[in-house]
């Protein structure tokens, strides 16, 4: 649920962040050239692109437990920090399908904001399930892989405000990736459509949707280490049919993937809003529907 628009102080675009990501990517590419990647094992691409999800669905029979936290920081005024953590079990019952489900935990630290009540809370946030189907598989003759995914989610705590709500979201994504250089360089692309309906005690029923996509690059510096960068463009609508546009935003930032053992890994990503606009508000950035920064930290254990 988005916050109400209001005038506020001007923010500075974070172009420097994108430059840092690009520099890291270019530096990483040079370092990776020095190593022979032909002896490296193939890598699962699902989590190597940060917020962008790769097409990987795991191995048949594989199970995984993950803790996946996303933090959102900064609005127009006051201080704003919110997190949502997925405690997730995922398994791959066939060579084309992956299923995930789990519980959500949320936290909100909000103060001094014009449009949101101050609160400092941590709570059980709801539950979710995800179904992923591998539609196009990568082979040694075809570098492209595409997975279709749907993720129904039920929230009891509003993602933005932390207020008690009934929120039903149905995220639909296309996750595609390309292996540009064998075992070394990967490009990822996501297309996102996320309709949701929210019931609150004060505002009644709100319907909205987010639509957009991302592009990411990830370079493998070592068998167990990848770094990269990603760009997201998202549009927000006050209608699930995408008929009432309210604003959009462009976010970018670096990504990191580290595999500690053959069964354990972590991924981290940070996006800053570089550009955005709100309909009816001349101020830069879109901080009604999105945030100044978001960060992701995920740990996974396969068994």
């Amino acid at each position: 649920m988005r916050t109400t628009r209001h005038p506020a102080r001007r923010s500075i675009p974070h172009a420097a962040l994108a430059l840092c990501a690009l520099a890291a990517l270019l530096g990483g590419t040079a370092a990776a050239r020095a190593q022979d990647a032909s002896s490296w094992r193939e890598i699962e691409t699902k989590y190597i692109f940060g917020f962008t999800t790769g097409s990987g669905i795991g191995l048949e029979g594989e199970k995984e437990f993950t803790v996946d936290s996303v933090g959102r920081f900064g609005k127009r005024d006051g201080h704003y920090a919110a997190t949502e953590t997925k405690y997730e079990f995922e398994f791959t019952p066939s060579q084309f399908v992956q299923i995930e489900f789990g519980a959500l935990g949320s936290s909100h630290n909000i103060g001094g904001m014009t449009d949101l009540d101050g609160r400092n809370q941590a709570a059980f946030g709801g539950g979710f399930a995800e179904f992923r189907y591998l539609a196009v598989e990568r082979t040694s003759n075809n570098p492209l892989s595409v997975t279709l995914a749907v993720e129904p989610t039920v929230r009891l705590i509003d993602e933005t405000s932390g207020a008690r709500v009934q929120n039903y979201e149905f995220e639909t994504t296309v996750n595609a990736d390309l292996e540009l250089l064998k075992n070394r360089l990967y490009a990822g692309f996501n297309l996102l459509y996320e309709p949701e309906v929210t019931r609150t005690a004060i505002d009644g029923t709100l319907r909205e949707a987010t639509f957009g996509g991302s592009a990411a690059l990830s370079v493998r510096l070592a068998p167990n280490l990848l770094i990269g960068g990603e760009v997201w463009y998202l549009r927000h609508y006050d209608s699930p049919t995408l008929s009432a546009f309210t604003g959009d935003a462009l976010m970018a930032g670096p990504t990191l993937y580290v595999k500690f053992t053959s069964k354990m890994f972590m991924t981290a990503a940070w996006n800053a809003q570089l550009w955005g606009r709100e309909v009816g508000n001349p101020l830069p950035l879109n901080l009604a529907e999105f945030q100044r920064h978001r960060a992701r930290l995920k740990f996974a254990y396969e068994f």
Partner: protein
Amino acid sequence: MSAATMTMRILIPAAVGAIALLQPAWAEPAADVRVTYSHGQFQPGVVSAPVDKPVVIHVKNLDAKALEFESTSLRVEKVVAAQSEGIVNVRALKPGRYEFYDDFNDKARGALVVE
């Protein structure tokens, strides 16, 4: 409409769709491929299989310790106990080279060539 009702309306169709996708896709006869694991190596190192036909890989472990037959591109993993045989069922494959390895032994590598 209650929260529970709405939740069921979302989750049930999604679950039915997912279960439908779980049905095995290999109704036609499979091609048998045999691999032996000895002294920490796969023998032969490269095996072949026909295009667009399901594959059954028989992995015979002659060593005194277990191996985990694994492949990212085949999307399979199977632990094979010491001095025993494991069977790995693989979908019908497109032409290409599919690498496999022992997840417990970084030096044990092999490949399935589909042509």
